[in-house]
């Protein structure tokens, strides 16, 4: 449980994709999310599928982790597939049983759109399965750096993200402790009428909030004492390194985009 909190869905392994720079992974996923919508015929969907499979293969992530990511959306995929099957009434009639009619176009659209859904989920999962939350934060910080020009506090956001990430396990423990303490006093969190359960949340939240105020104050004082005074001139502990792998994979991505534009109808 604790580990789940710190690393999210990250699966520690050694693969080409794991070693990629978080910046290039973020760019890759961002571009992929955009170009998926270019595909509109069999060939383009196959190209996207091959690219997705290639990326998944290179990441060496075992299938069960991918499946865990897919599970919550399987319902949505089935739902959209069914909507298309029964509600699109174009093309040739393929199948008729009583009032159920399935048309060629419905089947085609249903399959394509479910595939699009799967590709998107798989590629975004790939990002979080091969990159830790803190790496993603670092990547976002450098990618969003130009936004400093419009007064967007990029550095402060990154600092706050690292603090938030750092405190998730700590606060988790704290919550657990307070819950147990209140349960020992007879507070019921999981049974009884809704009204009582609502009231039970308050004795959990108040100590949690008060101790968080205290923690924040202590941390702020500690940071001040160590000379924290904003972004200018701060050095970084974790350095991002762009390697040839990143360039190669992004080139692949560019080629895929060009192919999609050429072959779409």
């Amino acid at each position, binding site marked *: 449980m604790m580990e789940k*909190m710190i690393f*999210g*869905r990250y699966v520690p392994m050694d693969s080409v994709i794991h070693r990629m720079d978080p910046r290039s992974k973020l760019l890759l996923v961002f571009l992929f*999310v955009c170009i998926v*919508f270019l595909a509109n015929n069999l060939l383009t969907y196959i190209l996207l599928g091959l690219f997705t499979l290639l990326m998944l293969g290179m990441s060496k992530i075992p299938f069960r982790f991918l499946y865990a990511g897919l599970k*919550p*959306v399987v319902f*949505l995929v089935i739902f*959209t597939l069914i*909507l*298309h099957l029964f*509600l*699109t009434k174009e093309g040739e009639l393929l199948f008729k049983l009583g009032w159920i009619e399935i048309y060629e176009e419905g089947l085609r*659209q249903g399959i394509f*759109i479910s595939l699009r*859904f799967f590709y*998107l*989920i798989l590629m*975004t*999962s790939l990002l*979080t399965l091969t990159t830790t*939350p803190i790496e*993603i*934060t670092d990547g976002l910080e450098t990618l969003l750096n130009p936004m400093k020009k419009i007064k967007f506090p990029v550095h402060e*956001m990154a*600092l*706050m*993200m690292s*603090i*938030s*990430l750092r*405190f*998730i396990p700590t*606060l*988790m423990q704290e*919550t657990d402790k307070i*819950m147990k303490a209140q349960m020992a006093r007879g507070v019921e*969190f*999981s049974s009884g009428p*809704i009204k009582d*359960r*609502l*009231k039970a*949340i*308050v004795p*959990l*939240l*108040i100590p949690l*909030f*008060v101790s*968080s105020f205290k923690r*924040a*104050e202590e*941390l*702020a004082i500690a*940071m*001040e004492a160590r000379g*924290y*005074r*904003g972004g200018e001139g701060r050095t970084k502990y974790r350095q991002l390194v762009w390697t040839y792998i990143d360039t190669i994979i992004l080139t692949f991505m560019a080629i895929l985009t060009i192919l999609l534009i050429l072959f779409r109808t």
Partner: protein
Amino acid sequence: MKQNKTLFLVEIAIFTSLAFLLNLVSQVMPLKVWPQGGSVSIEMVPIFIMAYRWGVKGGVLAGFLLGLLQFVFGPTIYHPVQGFIDYFVAFSVVGLAGLFASQIKNAVQQKQRGKWIVLATLGILLGSLLRFISHFITGIVFFGSYAPEGQPVALYSFIYNGTYMLPNFILCVIIVVLVISAAPKKMI
């Protein structure tokens, strides 16, 4: 002043992780407030507290960070517009509840209980409404790009998002009011 700025950053960061955590806790632990569980959770409570303590800036920053945290822990993206709104806009706008911050502060200091309860409820209404609108738009994007043409996508999105945002709103009002009235000076 400097001290205040660091404290501002740190407090918002810590309360954002609290918000993230409360969302997880209500899924994992036996803190089932709503019988069906689902998306109904109290994750917005810490954002409202930050919005009332630090004003719009604090609230929006806390909301934005919460979206970012959920993004780095595994986003569900099925459309660029949806991804952007769901993770970078939907929670930020919750922080606009902070528009009422100074009035609430005054009311709390003058011990006008009725007044701050009304103001806090208005703030939560504003925040929840704006979040609902964001999710409503992403819902239209979702159903629009995945459902067959000719479907009443706006209606689908309205019903789908309404079923959890309305209980979420009511829940937040109750909890925020209970929490603030338990320790008004400490919270605001």
